[in-house]
């Protein structure tokens, strides 16, 4: 409690000075050395229709599926060109119909190291590596109610950005490859790829993601529209009228808007997104709201 009060005090005091740089693992915005930005975010994602393989359907025994997320995400300026971002979400799931019990808990702690390797006349090249490890002992295969899949992951990402120096107009694009480990489930047999595996070990498919963002970033605000693609590189489809499983080949394309206002050290950000197309995934509509606190460590 004391520490939080102290942090808020520091945050409020530092309102009086300094520009702001709240940032994400998928942008080219960097915290200066020795500054920390802590984002507290709440989000909700819902779907009523999903793709069972390629078949788009509803499920009257699920109704509307909702995932709520509260996350804390500190970003640290290790140097002006190297930032470290952490993220720890707490997740709840629920449905509006049927009798599947909602699940909740801390999911996976992730970390991202973002490096501005090249910068030339507004153009930057940013290699990013990310990793995640599950922190909660949640059930990974009670889908779609599980809060995560228990897979450790490593992400390699290359992000390119061009920001027009005078107007702040920017275009960002990135591509990533996500290695995901095998997981253990509570059962000692399961079906995947049209066969039975007589073990509790499950292979979660690797994936890639890619995105394009167009926006404007100014000293105190930022606005952008984006399109993102996430796709497992292999995996199987949800069987007809069966539940999903961690081996499924999940894919989705989503479009959305992101914005941020941070006149001083306290700011807010918001994001809305809508899945336009998918495979073995829900057609989600999601929003997120965040509160940003920047702490200058000088």
């Amino acid at each position: 409690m004391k520490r939080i009060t102290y942090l808020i005090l520091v945050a409020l005091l530092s309102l009086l000075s300094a520009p702001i740089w709240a940032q994400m693992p998928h942008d080219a915005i960097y915290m200066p050395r020795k500054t920390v930005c802590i984002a507290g975010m709440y989000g909700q994602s819902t779907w009523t229709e999903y793709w069972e393989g390629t078949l788009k359907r509803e499920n009257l025994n699920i109704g509307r599926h909702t995932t709520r997320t509260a996350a804390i995400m500190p970003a640290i300026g290790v140097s002006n060109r190297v930032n470290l971002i952490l993220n720890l979400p707490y997740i709840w799931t629920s449905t509006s119909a049927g009798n599947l019990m909602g699940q909740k808990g801390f999911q996976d702690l992730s970390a991202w190291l973002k490096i501005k390797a090249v910068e030339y006349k507004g153009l930057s090249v940013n290699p990013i590596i990310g990793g995640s490890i599950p922190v909660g002992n949640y059930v990974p295969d009670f889908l779609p109610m599980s809060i995560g899949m228990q897979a450790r992951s490593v992400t390699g990402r290359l992000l390119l950005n061009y920001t027009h120096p005078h107007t702040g107009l920017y275009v960002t694009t990135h591509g990533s490859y996500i290695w995901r480990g095998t997981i253990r489930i509570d059962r000692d047999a399961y079906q995947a790829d049209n066969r039975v595996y007589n073990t509790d070990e499950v292979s979660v498919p690797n994936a890639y993601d890619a995105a394009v963002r167009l926006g404007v970033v100014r000293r105190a605000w930022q606005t952008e529209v984006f399109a993102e693609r996430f796709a497992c590189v292999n995996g199987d489809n949800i069987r007809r009228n069966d539940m999903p499983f961690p081996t499924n080949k999940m894919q989705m394309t989503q479009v959305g808007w992101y914005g941020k206002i941070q006149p001083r050290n306290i700011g807010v950000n918001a994001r809305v997104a809508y899945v336009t197309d998918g495979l073995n995934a829900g057609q989600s509509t999601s929003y997120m709201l965040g509160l940003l606190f920047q702490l200058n460590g000088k």
Partner: protein
Amino acid sequence: MKSSTRILLIAGLSVLGLSSVLTSCDKTIEEPQRVAYTPADVDAKAGSWKTYILTAPTDVTVAAPASTSSAAYLAELNDLKTKSASLTRQQQEAVVYWGAGAVYRWNEIARELAARYNVPPASNADGKYPIPDAANPLADPKFPFANPPYTARALAYLSVAQYDALVAAWHYKYAFKRTAPSKTDASVRVALPVSALPAYPSEDAVVATASYTILKAMFPGEGPFLDAKLAEHRESRLWAGMNVQSDLAAGADLGSQVGAKVMARARTDGMSASNNQTVTAAMIEAAKARGLADVWVSQESPARPPMLPNYGAVSLWNFDRATLVKLRPGPAPLPGSDQFKKELAELQAIQKNQTREQARIANFWADGAGSYTPPGHWARTAADAAHEARFSEIRMARTLALVSTALQDAGVCCWETKFYYYTPRPQQFGVKTSVGLPNFPSYTSGHSTFSGAAAAVLSYVFPERTNEFMAKAQEASVSRIYGMIHFRSDCESGLICGKNIGAYAVSRGKADGSGL
């Protein structure tokens, strides 16, 4: 400030480091490997063990083999030497795979098919559930819906066919006493252990063809898959240098004769009427007349007709209908009674605060949609135990026949009980589930009944492992409380009833002439 930044830095770098170390690039899934063994006992006298469907081994015929000194046999031996001399990697893998045991592998294949077909049909645009069509097995919904009662029956027929066919095979093996090719000619290269068992007819071909006949009838959409398995199994015996062609041909002939006789029973056992939905109105009336106000109602949307309401009328293996009525447990606590309230409160408390261990147990035993079902789970347990005990093919088949017939008896008895009492599920009182809700009445628990029956039989076959099997059955039973889809009475009565059902299979085993 500085120290908290440092903590965050260390945390972040640790996550990055740990995840990269722990996220293995190797995504191969390791499964337990089963390999060939020399049986602890070849059970030379098994040709006289009591069969299920055959009245005697001589119900089926096997032609006398050519002598091992005949020109025909020597030609077969030469052919065998060519086929087994050098193997491709794929052939070697097939030899190792089938070498683990014919009964063992065909049981595993049956479980895989059960899992593949164990998904309830989706509702259509009219809010109806189309019924799987045996004449069009690969259309949506696929035929069969291999739910627990269906799978219990498929596994029972499979094991009975394998067992009866092997009893007949043992009879003829010891009548003809044709030795294994490698014992006739030491220059035959063998890839698997060779026992003292006579080779004609081949027990592998017997099991393969009997199993194929049953499984093709039970899973009619799997013809090509089963054809490939059958062909590979037979070929693997040549690649391994274990059987000549005439051993295999005679085995295949015997296996299909027995398979046909066993399927003749299957076609008249009442299964075709098991989904007769017209019987439910009278069942509900009878349950209400006994004082049950809140009967079971489908919790699915749209409401789904209950799973196989007339399965309780399907033929039994180890006891008669009068015994079934005597085995049926007394009624469940009525909703509103103190006992009922107590059991509902137990489930509500779990819903509020389910421990991770309770969730683990519920998940481990769930065996729901997409799985090989509880009968498959126990068949696997039985096959693994028999494999670890180095049982001969025929003793393995006997074990699985005793267990699988007990499992189907348990299914029939439990379904009769469920639809006799027609009791509501906890979900009709607002309870959620962490494993998914089956679509049929609550009392008694199918998992508990299946598990009690299987554990009772396994404890007889493997007395030294009694505590282990009984503990597993107890855990399977209580898992349905932890998953919140059964009241405690459902599970406790089901487990006791299951053990009583298993006792009938045990009696049969004690009297089948095996002396085991």
